[in-house]
């Protein structure tokens, strides 16, 4: 138990602490019934079950939380949110965990969050998502030369079917001011 307490008060950055507090508010009422785990289509690939993850959040076990790959395997299907008898927004909590890990900036977060980062930076640049340039951004972030090769056959099939398009510039830069404002507000909160 003392170990848990030490972790609770382990030194953290301000943003991390705020994110964790927000998370604890989200799942504070969890009564550990396990319905979320039983509803999760991806539970078998997780190292910590969703139910245990909420307990770890309640205890503030930030190091163990950040080590886990559980929340990266949430596909946002909302089955746990739908079934939670306490009405907790558990899918949003998984999203908040992804944001928490992003603040921490660990290597695992950079790899697992690469798709979301590539997606959002493409949206910021182009206003509307351009699938081809987003995937390029994703490959660059992952820095794994095997990855583009794994997607090459699909890319060629899509090209053959006319499913890949030159980037549209119509909405380019449209979202820049909003992204800048949100970044400024979130850094200052």
């Amino acid at each position, binding site marked *: 138990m003392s170990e848990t307490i030490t972790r609770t008060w382990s030194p953290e950055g301000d943003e991390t602490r705020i994110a964790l507090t927000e998370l604890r508010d989200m799942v504070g009422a969890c009564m550990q019934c396990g319905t979320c785990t039983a509803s999760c289509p991806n539970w078998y690939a997780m190292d910590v079950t969703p139910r245990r993850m909420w307990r770890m959040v309640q205890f503030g076990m930030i190091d163990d939380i950040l080590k886990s790959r559980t929340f990266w395997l949430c596909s946002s299907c909302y089955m746990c949110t739908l079934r939670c008898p306490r009405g907790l927004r558990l899918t949003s909590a998984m999203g908040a965990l992804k944001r928490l890990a992003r603040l921490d900036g660990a290597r695992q977060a950079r790899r697992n969050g690469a798709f979301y980062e590539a997606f959002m930076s493409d949206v910021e640049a182009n206003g509307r998502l351009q*699938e081809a340039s987003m995937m390029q951004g994703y490959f660059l972030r992952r820095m794994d030369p095997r990855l583009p090769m794994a997607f090459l056959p699909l890319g060629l099939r899509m090209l053959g079917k006319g499913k890949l398009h030159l980037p549209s510039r119509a909405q380019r830069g449209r979202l820049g001011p909003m992204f800048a404002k949100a970044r400024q507000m979130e850094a200052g909160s």
Partner: protein
Amino acid sequence: MKYAYYPGCSLMESAREFDVSVRAVMVRLGAELVEIPDWTCCGASAAEPVSKLMNYALPARNLAIAQDALPGMDILAPCSACYLNLLKVNREVVGERHLHGQVNEVLAASGLTYRGGVPVRHLLDVLLNDVGAGIMAQKVTRSLEGMKLAPYYGCQILRPYAVFDSPGRPTSMEPIIRAMGGEVHEWECGNRCCGASLMVGHRDVALRSVAAILDQAAGADAVVTVCPLCQMNLEAYQGDAVKAGGRRIPVLYLTQIMGLAMGLGESEVQLGKNLTLNAGARRGIETRAWSVTLQAEGAEPGRAAGAEQSIPDQARTGKMNNLNKGGNHV
């Protein structure tokens, strides 16, 4: 019937056939779609892991534009993630004073404010409750008789907000399929997750879900869906999914099938863009050969040989082989 149409990014990119068929079908049904001017990305399921504010501000921008430019119109969103993100703003931001203020502060950077109150509707909701199965059936000129379709709903159109159907056992596509003259494939996978964007970063996990869904579709002529990401996952990775226990089957947008039943040609619903459909399979659909070939192929010894199934099953297997190999048997 006039709707503020929000196609979303996918429908401009890899799911263009969904956009084209939605527009074509809605015209046939007498509805007018006015595209929201200057719309931008809703953030899909990628915004939430990156920024809580942008997760709400991105869809709110489109709601704010619709509120000012197209007053009084419901928003029609065919894409599941777009629909949920737009709906989320109405459910989770409007009425939450602090959050609503923050979101509007972000919107102010683009000179916009969202007051709330723009209704967000999903395509299925509009088809069922505004158009109705009766009107849809009247528009059918080429019945889908003999065609068995597996309705695949995916996750985000009914979860966590069940607006127009039961999230546990969705049925909203069934009256539409029946109105087109088709038959509904009964299965338990209609609301199962396809793995969504895990297909990019954790392919083995998503593949297991896709394989299970494709396996349960056995016996159907095609899976029909209304989600561009589901369609992509179920269709583009069938080669790998087959190795994991799935089977090959055409995966079409519901509106493509509706368009065909309403007399549109295959180019008008862009059937040529579907990765699982080749020339032979397309022709099979277009000439409504589903029931005709069933009997013709049952008698064909070469195709049925070796299959340890009853006669109708043999026929179906033969038809499926043809569908997938592209044999022109019409």
